[in-house]
């Protein structure tokens, strides 16, 4: 019953309630994995469906994610190494020369909400930095964003650098001027036209 209450609190965008109830469940000795998967990630999966259906809009989806993350912060120190990386680890950033970040931030937050461990490198990120962090953190996916056509070549540079470094990480790209064709051209593993699609894409790549 109580895990359902956590689920409902996320759906109600109630950060304080999520924190309170998660704390209580942990204290009650409920299995951490169950709280994580059924209470928090489960709620965000439902949020994701409602968002795709157009019943919830971006600010609401982000509020739900914020509430979920508050609960996740309480569980994090208690998660096993396997549980922590369970769904996957993503390194994300806007490529070198580009300072636009709204879209990237949206993808970042939606991925976290979906239970992925996200390392956001910010904007104007050199290909070397992507490779370095992905190597250190053993990232499953490297996600690249660009809004400017003039910075799209930096996506190619990064994808090539990842391959040359021999990383197992998959690369995905997105941004308004980016297309599937461009992704194919530069050898990226995937492309998404929007944030929900990026989350689905990463889930598919991790399957």
């Amino acid at each position: 019953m109580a895990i359902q209450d956590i689920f409902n609190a996320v759906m109600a965008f109630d950060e304080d309630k999520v924190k309170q109830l998660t704390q209580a469940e942990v204290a009650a000795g409920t299995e951490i994995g169950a709280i994580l998967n059924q209470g928090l990630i489960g709620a965000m999966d439902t949020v994701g469906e409602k968002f795709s259906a157009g019943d919830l809009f971006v600010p609401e989806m982000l509020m739900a994610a914020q509430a979920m993350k508050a609960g996740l912060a309480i569980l994090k120190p208690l998660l096993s190494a396997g549980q922590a990386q369970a769904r996957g680890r993503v390194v994300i950033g806007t490529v070198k020369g580009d300072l636009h970040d709204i879209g990237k931030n949206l993808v970042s937050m939606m991925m976290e909400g979906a239970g992925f461990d996200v390392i956001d490198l910010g904007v104007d990120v050199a290909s070397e930095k992507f490779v370095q962090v992905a190597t250190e953190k053993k990232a499953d996916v490297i996600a690249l964003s660009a809004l400017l056509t003039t910075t799209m070549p930096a996506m190619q540079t990064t994808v090539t650098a990842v391959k040359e470094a021999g990383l197992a990480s998959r690369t995905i790209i997105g941004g308004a001027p980016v297309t599937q064709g461009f992704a194919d051209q530069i050898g990226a593993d995937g492309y998404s036209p929007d944030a929900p699609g990026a989350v689905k894409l990463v889930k598919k790549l991790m399957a």
Partner: protein
Amino acid sequence: MRYFEYFSEQEVRRIHETCLRLLETVGVDFSFEPALEVLKKAGCKVEGQRVFFPPTLVEAQVAKAPAQYTLQARNPEKSVVIGGEHIAFIPCYGPPFVTDLDRGRRASTLEDYINFVKLGHASRSLDITGGMMAEPNDVPHERRNAEMMYASMRYSDKPFMGGAIGAEAARETIEMTAILFGCSEAALAEKRPIISILCARTPLAYDDRMLGAIMEYAKAGMPQLISSLSIAGATAPVTMEGTLVVQNTEVLAGIVLTQLIREGTPVVFAGSSSCSAMRYGTLSIGAPEMAVNTAATAQMARFYGIPSRGGGALSDAKLPDAQAGFEAMMSQLMATLSGVHFVLHSAGILEGYMVSSYEKFVLDDEICGMCKRIKRGERADEDRLAFELIRQVGPGGEYLTQKHTFQNFRKEIYANLLEEKDSYANWQQKGALSIDRRANQKWKEILKAYQEPQLPAETDKALRRYIERKYGA
């Protein structure tokens, strides 16, 4: 003509004071050392990249920007006045994709850019050749600005827009324009044949590439739009009033910089803010909020005595369809009625600035023509009221055969390019075409009938030589 305005005088003051307070206490980030030096020397408090502006400095500098100026065209008859009672329409700017009903959506090429220069040149209602109307994806990056500048200079004799990606593009534009006019750069400052758009990075910042170009153009006395696209709910408050304040604060900060570099250098107070499409977290430009901001920007620019930019034939639609039509007309009508001077994106835009459409280009040209007619308005003069004529014709008479009608109808009534006004039977017989299909025929006709306004051979050679010396054959 009296303009549509939302705000009372008191509200205008309050908006202005809020901007001054932000400039003084919150500040704006300038990520470019040379700009920081200029601002510091002028009396701003500078902490790292954060610049705090004294209100007296802001008001004093903003007052130096001219209220009106003329862009001289290669063909003097096509010179354009920016400011006062005038409105100028300029095509789309920025899309990396192009579309038409035959070939569909695709990455744009230099040929598309050239086609849009030609369509603009042939237009009665578009005043200035657009910049970056379709990104030439088939040209190596470094060379794109030069090839677009050459195309603007060769295929049209109207004033045109300059490059904006960094000081290098600005420099290159100025050098090529000096070759075109066969004069020194100092003399160019008198002619002002180009205008460029430079933007803030919302909220409350300017990046190094934009600042490099802003400073280069200001030094040369070249007109420039100091522009902000603040997105309500994403990069600015979700209230349009809050977005207006973020927008104006950025624009004022940029204008102060230009005037400090060269007093009296012409600028445009440019606001193109809108709201997010909250379902997707993306920018929506075919939104009523955009129209609201257009009027608000125009009114505030009038308060500052600086020409304004806003509006456009703006649409989020994917096709030149009904959505594209009503969204575009909404923004253009608002721009016209609220007294905007410089209307960018007035031809071709689809998909919220991502795509330039050939069909929409000519449809929008029609909208520009209609809006110019609306701006012309009415003058209740004795002879225009036509009392004598009405008395002569009397009750029960008719006007179709009157000499007065015969003599004046062509200049009195707007002559449409494209709109379908024929009878149903005739429309059917002509092929029962929807307006986008008519537009598809029309742009092809225009390109076929296009006549190049020849550049003098030496000028053309000098321009090609400049490009080849920099980038190879």
